[in-house]
């Protein structure tokens, strides 16, 4: 697949001391939705501002659809749809006049302009508020105006800085659906610190901390970093606990069996697999074979939250 966004060695230092981005390189292909994660102040926004050509990097550059943002800024920018943090828009304009301005400056006129604007309005769900001043709109609608502006020219590259921040659950759902819909024929970068969003829409996640990329992979890859990811948890009657442990220990792919808790009615066991192997089916089969009754059996999943905390705090001191 074609690489549409290629950032290489982006570095930005503010005021000689604050290193906001320290050599960030990433490539996003068509069809990919890249989740850009990191704690507040990690350099997400700075990196996006450099990719979109708002900020000039101290080193490195970004290439959008083959156009270097430094050397051919207009061409590169024409390929990008960008929703800056907080979705800024001219408050004194109405969504209708604002989108007309954006369409004009993006080079659309006449019928093409009308079609583009109508499509953007439809996708962002702005029908009801077209003639109200943007400054009087609710936060959710303001965000939609920003979104409409970003997708108006159907850009091959879509970059959104916290597109769902501050939206209610319905609005978040709507924005995520929109991203999923557009994903197949675009390269999309979405920054967020809401981790559920990564699982919901992103095909890949990049975690940055202190201006550096500290993890890059699918949400699944990231979750594999949690020690309990893929472990099988069992709830068993106390009388059968010993037998169950024996069965579990005999399975080759299990590294360790732990007793999590003992209470009056049940014992909680956890079987941790070797190298993240899938063990659930075998565990179930073996237990049935030996007729050990199991009250409950489920596969534990690593929480992205845990990974995030692990990556962004343990390495901080290093």
């Amino acid at each position, binding site marked *: 697949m074609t690489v549409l966004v290629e950032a290489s060695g982006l570095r930005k230092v503010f005021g000689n001391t604050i290193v906001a981005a320290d050599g960030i390189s990433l490539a996003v292909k068509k069809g990919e939705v890249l989740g850009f994660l990191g704690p507040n102040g990690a350099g997400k926004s700075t990196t996006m501002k450099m990719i979109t050509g708002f900020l000039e990097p101290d080193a490195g550059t970004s290439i959008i659809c083959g156009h270097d943002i430094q050397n051919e800024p207009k061409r590169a920018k024409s390929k*990008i749809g960008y929703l*800056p943090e907080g979705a800024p*828009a001219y408050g004194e304009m109405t969504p209708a006049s604002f989108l007309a301005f954006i369409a004009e400056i993006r080079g659309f006129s006449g019928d093409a302009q009308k079609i583009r604007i109508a499509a953007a309005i439809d996708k962002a769900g702005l029908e009801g508020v077209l003639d109200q001043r943007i400054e009087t709109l609710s936060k959710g609608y303001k965000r939609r105006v920003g979104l409409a502006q970003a997708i108006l020219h159907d850009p091959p590259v879509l970059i959104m800085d916290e597109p769902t921040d501050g939206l209610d659950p319905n609005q978040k759902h709507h924005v995520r659906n929109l991203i999923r819909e557009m994903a197949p024929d675009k390269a999309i970068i979405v920054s967020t610190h809401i981790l559920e969003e990564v699982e919901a829409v992103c095909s890949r996640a990049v975690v940055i901390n202190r201006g550096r990329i500290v993890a890059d992979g699918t949400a699944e890859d990231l979750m594999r970093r949690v020690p309990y990811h893929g472990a099988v948890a069992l709830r068993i009657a106390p009388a059968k606990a010993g037998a169950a442990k024996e069965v579990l220990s005999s399975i080759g792919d299990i590294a360790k069996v732990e007793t999590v808790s003992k209470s009056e009615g049940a014992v909680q066991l956890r079987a941790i697999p070797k190298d993240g192997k899938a063990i659930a089916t075998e565990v179930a089969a073996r237990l049935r074979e030996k007729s050990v009754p199991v009250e409950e059996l489920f596969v534990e999943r690593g929480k992205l939250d845990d990974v995030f905390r692990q990556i962004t705090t343990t390495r901080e001191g290093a």
Partner: protein
Amino acid sequence: MQDTLENIWIIAKREFAAYFATPLAGVFLTIFVALTGAFTFYIGDFFTRGQADLFPFFAYHPWLYLILVPAVAMRLWAEERKNGTIELLMTLPVSPAEAILGKFFAAWAFVGLALLLTLPIWITVNVLGDPDNGIILTSYLGSLLMAGAFLSIGSFISALTKNQVIAFILAATVCFIFVMSGMEMVQNTLRAWAPEWVTSAVSAMSFLAHFEQISRGVVSLQSIIFFLSLIVFALFANVIAVDQKKAA
């Protein structure tokens, strides 16, 4: 080139309309027309002078612009930076120079409109007497040119701060210096210690002197070049200021 002109035009249109989105435009235009009228008819002794010209009208323009033009210019960039829309504008396929020119021309057109609304004064003088309309026309053009110089300074200063009030005060101060630099008072203070070339350089920067020339009907190339080059220089500084300050 085609592209550049089109972008400047689109931005200028939006910016011009933005003036009318708030009551600011109406307030400004009313004050401008009211003050020019007041200065001309009361302070300028229009009726008792017994002369059919608009000299008292134009004589007060530099002083009016001193307050009113920075008010027009203050929002140009400070507002964009404060609201974060500068990030939107600068990531559209528009160059900084196009954005700056578009905004500048919009503000200039707005002041031009204010000048246009003073035409009743011109009609009055034509009804009452037989003025030299050639001089009046060059005075109008000179006034517009001077307003452009004030505006370019205001636009540059507006890019230096997010605060419109600070932009207004700074711009008014700088414009005041430009207006005053030709006055006897300033010149005398300078003559006391500065070498001759400094005094004459400062006096050559005087808006007042250049504008008086034009409003007397003397369209000297020197004055036109002075205002135009000042505009070009200030707008060039504006590009640098926007570039340096946009992310701060």
